[in-house]
């Protein structure tokens, strides 16, 4: 790694329109050298468009961007020389072997035959592709193709690497393999911009996170900061007896913070609270007095899933209708800062990878 610009990636006011769709509506971002910036958003949020602008594949309608200190619009050649891109769909040549793929990229970075061959060998080892190195990459598994594509982005030892949804479509094994590879990359001081729809992925890998939706940045900060914006911890417990759930709903609803969420199939209640253990103790005491049996009690900090839902205001499914009486509970208080927290259903687990 040669001398790095202190801000490795920077964009100001990027906009891009495709027909009548505003793909980017003024995106600003900044990634200090040596950090991982996670760009988080649902499908169609503008993640790939952002990546394409930063990697000189797309000219923005307005705004500016710099990669490793080079202007994306004025000096694309220097940007390309300092940036490694791994796209959303692994761009490996299926009719070339793994080794040939990397050799080809090395040659096109201007390396000599020997240097390109040597670098291909190194990367194949590093990404655990040695055994398959001389097989056509069309025969590779999804995880192997991703790793090969990632290796392709690193051929010229770029100081900045842009990864567009590196684990989309991978099975859990492929995902954890890819995560391990990205961590190794970060350990060598490379700046990484990573887009993902998986909240867990951003949580695991990113130093700071940018949440975008409909081409707009709707939140930014560390994973902890984003979670804090949702506020409180989540108290979850299961009431196995269906006939007791209505009373349990009243008890939990009187805790003060939010409307409890009930999964009617399992009897699992979830409620957000600002007073953690205290609330837990109080709730369990009241439930015991009401002689309501509970199971699987859990108190946990909010996940990024919660933050994401709260920030985008996106509902994954309508919440189960509340039991009678819940709506009129005078003790229920919904925080204005958390617009979507009151109505979550069990479907939200679908947001987790």
């Amino acid at each position, binding site marked *: 790694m040669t001398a790095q610009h202190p801000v490795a990636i920077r964009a100001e006011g990027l906009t891009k329109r495709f027909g009548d769709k505003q793909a980017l509506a003024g995106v600003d971002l900044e990634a200090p050298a040596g950090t991982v910036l996670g760009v988080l958003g649902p499908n169609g949020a503008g993640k790939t468009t952002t990546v394409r602008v930063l990697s000189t*594949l797309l000219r923005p309608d307005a705004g500016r961007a710099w990669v490793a200190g080079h202007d994306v619009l004025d000096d694309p050649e220097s940007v390309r020389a300092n940036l490694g891109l791994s796209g959303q769909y692994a761009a490996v040549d299926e009719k*070339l072997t793994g080794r040939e793929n990397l050799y080809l*990229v090395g040659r096109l970075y201007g390396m000599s035959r020997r240097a390109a061959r040597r670098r291909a060998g190194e990367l194949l080892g590093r990404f655990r592709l040695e055994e398959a190195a001389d097989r056509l990459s069309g025969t590779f598994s999804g995880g192997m193709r991703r790793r090969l594509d990632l290796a392709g982005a690193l051929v010229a030892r770029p100081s900045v690497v842009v990864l567009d949804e590196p684990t989309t479509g991978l099975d859990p094994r492929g995902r954890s393999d890819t995560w391990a590879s990205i961590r190794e990359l970060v350990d060598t001081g490379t700046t990484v911009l990573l887009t993902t729809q998986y909240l867990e992925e951003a949580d695991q890998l990113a130093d700071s996170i940018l949440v975008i939706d409909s081409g707009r940045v709707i939140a930014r900060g560390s994973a902890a900061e984003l979670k804090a914006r949702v506020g409180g911890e989540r108290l979850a417990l299961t009431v196995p007896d269906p006939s007791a759930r209505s009373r349990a709903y009243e008890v939990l609803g009187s805790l003060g913070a939010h409307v409890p969420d009930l999964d009617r199939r399992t009897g699992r209640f979830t409620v957000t609270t600002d007073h953690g253990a205290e609330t837990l103790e109080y709730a369990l005491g009241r439930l015991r007095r009401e002689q309501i049996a509970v199971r699987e009690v859990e108190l946990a900090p909010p996940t990024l899933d919660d933050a994401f839902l709260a920030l985008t205001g996106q509902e994954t499914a309508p919440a189960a209708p509340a039991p009678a009486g819940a709506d009129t509970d005078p003790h229920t208080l919904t925080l204005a800062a958390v617009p979507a927290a009151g109505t979550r259903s069990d479907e939200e687990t679908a947001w987790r990878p």
Partner: protein
Amino acid sequence: MASVNRVARDASIIAWRNLLNLRRTPGSVIAALVQPVMFVLLLAYVFGGSLGGGDYRTFLMGGIFAQAVTFNAAFTALGLAHDMDKGIVDRFRSLPMPRMAVILGRTLSDLIMSTVTLVVTSLCGLLVGWRIAGTLGEALAAYLLILLFAFAMSWVGATIGLMARSVEVAQSAGLIWLFPVTFVSSSFVSTATMPGPLRTVAEWNPISAVATAVRRLFGNPPPGGIPVGDAWPVVHALPYALLSAAAITAAFMLLALRRFRAVTVG
């Protein structure tokens, strides 16, 4: 603007990659070679008998050569569209390499493909009775002219491939124009019997000029039943063929490159 050396170097690397791809997709190579052989046999024996027999088969080959390399433009269109679809072109575009090299690499590998097509077509011609009657130098000049024209047509194919929104569109758009363009010409018949405007179009069709020039260089005169006429492009077939090849290459090189840069930076 990237240096000529860098363009040549990177284009040859891309061409190497394309040829490796072709070698590993023997199906498409065989299809490319079967097509001219099929046209030789169809025209020589289905139409040939009523158009002049053995003399016609000798006459035919100049047209077949011009047609065969023109049809290879469809492979350029398909190859580029396929690479765009698979994200390979994006990978290339994200590398510090000249834009031109990506397309030039494709047209160069297709030029090699056209050379193979010419060898196979020539062998097939020899089998049906075609002979080179001119000098060795003239024969070499004829082959060079055909390859020059192949290169020009390849840039037309490249432009179509880059404009197509999908591989399927590239496949049909890359193929459909070839039939009128190769048949409204003096490749296989005399233009004399064509109705007025069509006849002019056929006479000025660069493919006619290539076919006519190649026949002269190979020493393959038209049979008595196929008058060639005395229009300017017929009389000056060789210079006109060279000129059109150069003009088509230049025009479509610009078009393809502009298309390639349209949405990209730099």
